[in-house]
């Protein structure tokens, strides 16, 4: 005899970290973004981060919408500039945990310079880069991450450019933590995100994600599942792999794992230690409360 479960009694454990009034998402069936957000939601809960003091910043594109589905302080910024916005948040309030969640085109092409320099500065932020290998929101144009032979709406004869090896770039620029997973590796991704959330310094996780609508169907994948199957079959976990060996090459294994995990002082730590006595800690740096009800001038200590 089966027991009928009331649908209302069913709640997704990650609901409390999502903006349920924004769901369903705008993402296509078969897209991997939702899966990565699920892993991220579990990671947020597992990390013990104070969610009231956690901000998520996105740029523009399909992945740029992630910030708006997570129940944190959400900032949907301009194309490519999520990292500098996040930098401002972190510098002005070091108590914040700041996560940038955006796409490959946004972070590595139009925002590529910011990615390099945030890693170099060792800005204390976590960057999650969902790599669907295409500009999806705008209709499937070639990205810096589109594999050479792949067809896109702006490379109908195939791309003439080699694709970017993102882990190698951020490793070279000085990131403290570099990992790559795919939307298939939900548990590994969650674990990696949890670990990265707890770490200090510039942390970077690339997540390969299927885009059946604008990448897959033009490049021999019948649907999102076909790309997921490829991730399953072709992925090879190689923790500690030198990042110059992890470029994604068509027909070759997809190297995943944690490639870099090192420690060096982040920007603010270095700044404080170098400034020494020049840094005058004001009890509470702020902009005033604006509470006019208190009336008298200069009342405001905040």
């Amino acid at each position, binding site marked *: 005899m089966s027991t009928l479960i009331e649908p209302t009694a069913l709640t997704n454990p990650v609901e409390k970290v999502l903006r349920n009034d924004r769901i369903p998402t705008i993402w296509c069936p078969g897209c991997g973004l939702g899966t990565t957000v699920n892993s991220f939601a579990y990671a947020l809960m597992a990390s013990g981060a104070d969610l009231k003091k956690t901000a998520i910043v996105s740029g523009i594109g399909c992945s740029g919408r992630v910030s708006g589905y997570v129940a944190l*302080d959400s900032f949907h910024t*301009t194309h490519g500039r999520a990292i500098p916005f996040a*930098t*401002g948040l972190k*510098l*002005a*309030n070091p*108590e914040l945990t700041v996560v940038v969640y955006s796409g490959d085109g946004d972070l590595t092409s139009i925002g590529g310079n910011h990615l390099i320099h945030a890693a170099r500065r060792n800005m204390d932020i976590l960057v999650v880069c969902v790599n669907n290998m295409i500009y999806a929101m705008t209709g499937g144009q070639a990205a810096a991450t589109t594999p050479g032979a792949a067809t896109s709406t702006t490379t109908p004869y195939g791309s003439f450019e080699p694709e970017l090896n993102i882990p190698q770039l951020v490793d070279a620029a000085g990131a403290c933590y570099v990992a790559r997973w795919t939307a298939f590796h939900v548990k590994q991704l969650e674990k990696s995100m949890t670990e990265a959330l707890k770490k200090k310094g510039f942390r970077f996780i690339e997540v390969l994600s299927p885009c059946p609508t604008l990448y897959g169907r033009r490049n021999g994948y019948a649907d999102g599942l076909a790309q997921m199957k490829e991730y399953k079959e072709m992925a090879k976990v190689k923790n500690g792999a030198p990042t110059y060996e992890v470029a994604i090459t068509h027909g070759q294994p997809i190297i995943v794992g944690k490639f870099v995990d090192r420690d060096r002082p982040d920007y603010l730590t270095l700044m404080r230690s170098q400034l020494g006595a020049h840094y005058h800690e004001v009890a509470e740096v702020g902009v005033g409360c604006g*509470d006019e009800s208190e009336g008298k001038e*200069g009342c405001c200590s905040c």
Partner: protein
Amino acid sequence: MHAEKESVLTGTHFINGDTACCEGLLAAGAKFAAGYPITPSTEVVERFAQRAPTVGGLFIQMEDELAASITLQGMVWAGQKSFTVTSGPGYSLMMEHIGYAAMTETPCVFVDVQRGGPSTGLPTLPAQGDMMQARFGSHGDYSTISLVPNSPQECFDLSVKALNLAEKFRVPVMFMMDECVGHMTEKVVIPEAEEIEVQPRRRTSKKPDEYLAYEVGEDLVPEMAHAGEGYGLYVTGLTHDKKGYPLMNPKQQRELVTRLFEKISRAADELTIVEADGVEGADVVVVSYGITSRVAMRAVHLAREKGLKVGSLRLICVWPFPEKLIRELAPKVKALIMPELNMGQVVIELERFAAGRTKVISVPHPGGTVHDPLEILEAIERGAQ
């Protein structure tokens, strides 16, 4: 609220406009800034980089102007007052984020120490060629405020005002200096902290569950909450509803964009900031702003020596344009003369509001130096005929 004592360099100083601008922004409560070096604006952030840590703040030099112009907005949403400083080419790069600040209603100041353009132009020489860019530079429709100082003293006084207005109206305020004013060294008197009025952040007094990020009262300016305060903010450059959620349809676009305009236009009287000299009863009035106003004053004096009834109207706040004032003034005079260090930008607005009721004479100049007062005098004489 008044300025914090430790941020204010009270006293009489002999400093340049760039330095005075830095001190003004500090006095107004900006302890955080992001920038990227560009002549002739660098002294502002060089000074700030030295001063900020002593008041618990910091300056970060970003990798480019695109980064600087949005890093400062992250600083604002984290609860600080912030600004950036640039010049022509950098100002062009910052345009997208001026739009973002206008759309998200992020209070901040963009300082543009204008130099000759277009393109790389004249890096070390003055111009006022970015005035229309200050008004219309970013894509889409928005309204903001531009203040134009004409001396190092005003670089202090008006940069305080610029940040105060930014906070009051929650807009990016353009502080339109020029190379002459920026590099000119003069006496600057910085008052006691208690004498400097500072507009505090308009923070919400509501609890997170009753707060709507873009709900407005009578003055159409929403109250702000910051990241990390438990409000679960949603800030986007997309057209959004009162919650801040994206809502992209013609109705919401009309509601939002109209409000972004109206919050400024409703304050037209408060934002009519001018300095008038002998305008009452004048036959001809020279309308000018920034460094050009100082050259114009020389021309006005020369004309007065010749017996002409000439007034001077200096626009301290150029945007929003003092429409009402010009509408009222135009029928009373034979001519309005506008010298500018550009090929005729703000004069377009002057003509629009003079509306054919008086002669409007433009005295353009491509920049690189200031006008010869005699050029302006000649225009005054033509206008007086």
